[in-house]
């Protein structure tokens, strides 16, 4: 389309006039401590049929900006300045009546979390029907089924009669997409539409969404934290940082030639774009190859060939109650075997329900295996006596996913890190305090953090405290259960770097449980891919990434957002 060729769309907008234009938008929130500015001077332009992505960390103002465009700011928020022009009409202070006309019909929305965005007490079909009805469209059972079928929901007529809790996460998200697009809006706001889903499902749904919007000619405002995903799906990317738009431009150009220091930082740390193992080890004098090829370690690590953990034919069967005293067996882990070499990182990758966390729980001796053996340093851990288990705990420590759940909110940081020392009766009060200070140094937290409480720290800081606690007993193996999954990209990179640095300094062995293949590539030496309780592929990280053997592994790799972007290597 050229600028001279002024065509009129069906809906009446000239193709060269922006469908949505946000100018100098400022949004503020009234909180207990006064007025807080969440967004300043935001601006972006979406042309008809275009997809624009806003990228930013949590708290960057990206979702707030999008919500303002559909008039759904929370009660304490307001547009403090600027304009939101929809097809030339300023809707930043439009009446509620006008907004109700626009919502659904002209502006649709696909929200983030498929679990909480459907009303649990109404059938899916009813929730589609009320949308059609509210926007004056035919809403018979056939229309409802058609809308659901278009969103890729199989057997739509029957599915419409089911409740949300009978749907899987992916199906719920399809239903939400169906609702968002049911009235063929001209603008669709998609707020992290797939971030709660497994990567393979995510890919299917985004592909389908792209197909539908391009058929309908719908413009899309995509909100995401994932730069790779944004670049892959959008024509233009807008980068937001601390409430400001810091950079905006065509996707590829922005990735290849980031100008603002924040964007540069973001591009450098985006795991989906990075292609190699974190190089900290190399900088510290250990060749990357040594990490990958066991047995070639320096004098500091004499035992690289030794298998510190041997998992042999491990299975776990849960009994699920089926009511009336009956129970069905659910095999969460099915005959899994692999070895972990001392001083290396082994990643277990899988989607939800793959059994990867169950393996971690069993290795930690928190869950008893149904069959099979876990041999730690030559000893089967399932036959340990209580006293031996106590000693075992000193040598194997966990770090968990949720930085908000893994620290006791009632304990200050000093007590949190000191607890393992106290429990194992190591040292006296003074020496324990010295040790806590050292540990805080090791995880790069100021010693003044000692007196603080978890609720005063950010997610990344909490995760560093959790690492310090895990290190307190000088363990040999650390089990990281999705340890960085809940963190923002930059913080995630920082924590991954810290973990890599600690490994090369202390000779730690990591068992890294994650759903995120992009992270695996950055940190792991070996990869075990799990699907539905079974181990489907193992190998060195390079082997698995370069030449995956199984279709499932290929599908996983292919689904990494940004994987298909062709980027010159120096950017990544």
């Amino acid at each position, binding site marked *: 389309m050229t600028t001279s060729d002024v065509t009129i769309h069906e809906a009446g907008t000239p193709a060269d006039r922006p469908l949505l234009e946000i100018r100098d938008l400022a949004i503020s929130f009234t909180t207990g401590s006064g007025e807080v500015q969440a967004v300043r001077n935001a601006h972006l*332009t979406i042309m008809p049929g275009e997809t624009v992505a806003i990228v930013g960390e949590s708290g960057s103002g990206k979702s707030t900006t999008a919500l303002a465009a559909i008039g759904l700011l929370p009660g304490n928020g307001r547009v403090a300045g600027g304009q939101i022009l929809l097809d030339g009409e300023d809707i930043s202070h439009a009446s509620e009546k006008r907004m109700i006309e626009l919502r659904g019909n002209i502006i649709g929305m696909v929200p983030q979390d498929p679990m909480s965005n459907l009303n649990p007490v109404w059938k899916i079909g009813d929730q589609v029907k009320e949308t059609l009805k509210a926007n004056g469209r035919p809403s018979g059972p056939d229309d409802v089924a058609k809308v659901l079928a278009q969103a890729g929901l199989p057997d739509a007529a029957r599915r419409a009669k089911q409740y949300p809790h009978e749907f899987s996460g992916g199906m719920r998200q399809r239903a939400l997409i169906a609702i968002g697009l049911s009235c063929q809006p001209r603008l669709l706001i998609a707020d992290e539409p797939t971030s709660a889903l497994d990567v393979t499902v995510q890919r299917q749904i985004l592909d389908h969404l792209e197909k539908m919007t391009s058929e309908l000619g719908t413009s899309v405002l995509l909100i995401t934290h994932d730069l790779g995903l944004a670049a892959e799906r959008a024509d233009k990317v807008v980068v937001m940082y*601390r409430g400001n738009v810091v950079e905006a431009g065509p996707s590829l150009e922005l990735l290849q030639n980031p*100008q603002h220091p924040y964007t540069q930082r973001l591009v450098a740390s985006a795991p989906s774009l990075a292609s190699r193992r974190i190089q900290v080890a190399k900088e510290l004098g250990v060749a990357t190859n040594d990490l990958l090829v066991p047995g070639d370690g320096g004098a500091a690590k004499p035992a690289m060939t030794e298998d510190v953990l041997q998992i042999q034919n491990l299975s776990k069967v849960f009994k699920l109650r089926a009511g009336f005293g009956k129970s069905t067996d659910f095999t969460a882990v099915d005959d899994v075997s692999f070895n972990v070499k001392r001083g290396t990182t082994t990643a277990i990758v899988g989607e939800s329900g793959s059994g990867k966390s169950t393996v971690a729980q069993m290795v930690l001796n928190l869950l008893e295996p149904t069959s099979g053996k876990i041999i730690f340093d030559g000893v089967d851990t399932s036959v340990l006596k209580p006293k031996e288990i106590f000693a075992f705990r000193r040598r194997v420590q966990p770090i968990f996913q949720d930085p908000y759940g893994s620290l006791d909110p009632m304990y200050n940081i000093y007590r949190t890190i000191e607890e393992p020392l106290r429990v*194992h009766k190591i040292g006296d009060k003074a020496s324990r305090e010295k040790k806590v200070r050292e540990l805080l140094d090791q995880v790069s937290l100021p010693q003044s953090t000692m007196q603080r409480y978890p609720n005063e720290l950010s997610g990344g800081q909490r995760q560093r405290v959790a690492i310090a606690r895990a290190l307190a007993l000088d363990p040999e193996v650390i089990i990281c259960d999705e340890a960085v999954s809940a963190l923002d990209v930059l913080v995630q990179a920082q924590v991954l770097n810290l973990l890599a640095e600690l490994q090369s300094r202390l000779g730690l062995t990591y068992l890294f449980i994650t759903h995120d293949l992009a992270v695996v590539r950055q940190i792991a030496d070996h990869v075990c891919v799990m699907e539905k309780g079974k181990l489907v592929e193992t190998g060195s990280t390079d082997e698995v990434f370069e030449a995956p053997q199984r279709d499932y592994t290929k599908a996983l790799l292919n689904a990494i957002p940004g994987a298909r972007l062709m980027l010159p290597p120096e950017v990544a």
Partner: protein
Amino acid sequence: MKTNRKAEHFVAPVEETPLLATDAVKTDDAPLSLWADAWRKLRRRPLFIISAVMIALIVIVAVFPGLFTQVDPDNGCVLANSNGAPTEGHPLGFTFQGCDIYSRIIHGTQASLMVGVFSVISVLIIGVTLGALAGFFGGWIDTVIARLGDIFFALPIVLGALVLTQLPLMRENRGVGTVVLVLVVLGWPQMARITRGAVIEVRNADFVTAARSLGVSRVGSLVSHVLPNALAPIIVLATMELGVFIVAEATLSFLGIGMPGSVMSWGNDISAAQASIRTNPAVLLYPAAALSITVLSFIMLGDALRDALDPKSRQR
């Protein structure tokens, strides 16, 4: 949809949004524990201040009634004063028996408060222990305790009290002890339920699993991690129940199955006032007001505590 429309590349000046160090620890304000945080919130709530002052006053009255009145509430009654209007030194007038209403209210505080405090302490001991065991260990322990609780729960408090107080043993020893016993027997399931729920919510938190993998025993993690984090709803319920139990005592006394007539209590006074309510409402209204204000103070305190301890308001 990818179009090949050319868009400009915008870069904001760096000065407008200077880069902050990734994830720096803020060092400006003082560290704040959850309790300190709750205390800070409470201090600013008028509801809390009013109820705290009221409760302090009520406790002083209960412990040192002599500070507030010199009139003997029992033996100073003169029938000539029956249903008399207020006079010098007798600000609220007289009962049907010619006793000083004000003095009786002051001296009656003790019994009401004692029933409330003893009942709540006993309910806390029984309910929290059973609830925590049920919630934390689950399995058959949970089933047994939950079913047991259901059985007592299916006995509405006044109905249950009616049956209990019919027992010869209870009838012959009526007093603070029996009333407390009745309230505890019928009141513990509520506390056990709340504790169980709170414990289950915390039980599976990662920090409990982390403590277990540090080598902390199961019971150790229950005591040092789970219970402290489950305390908020327990404290709130205990505060409210103090009020509820005081009402229950008064109701039982009113029905004639609570305190024996010889014990001075608001419930007994209100019960005795029924006879002369039309001629002298003051006999009924003043003790009723004392009772209501006391209960209101505890309920308000519980309400303020609930807001301050609400985990939802804690998260940033």
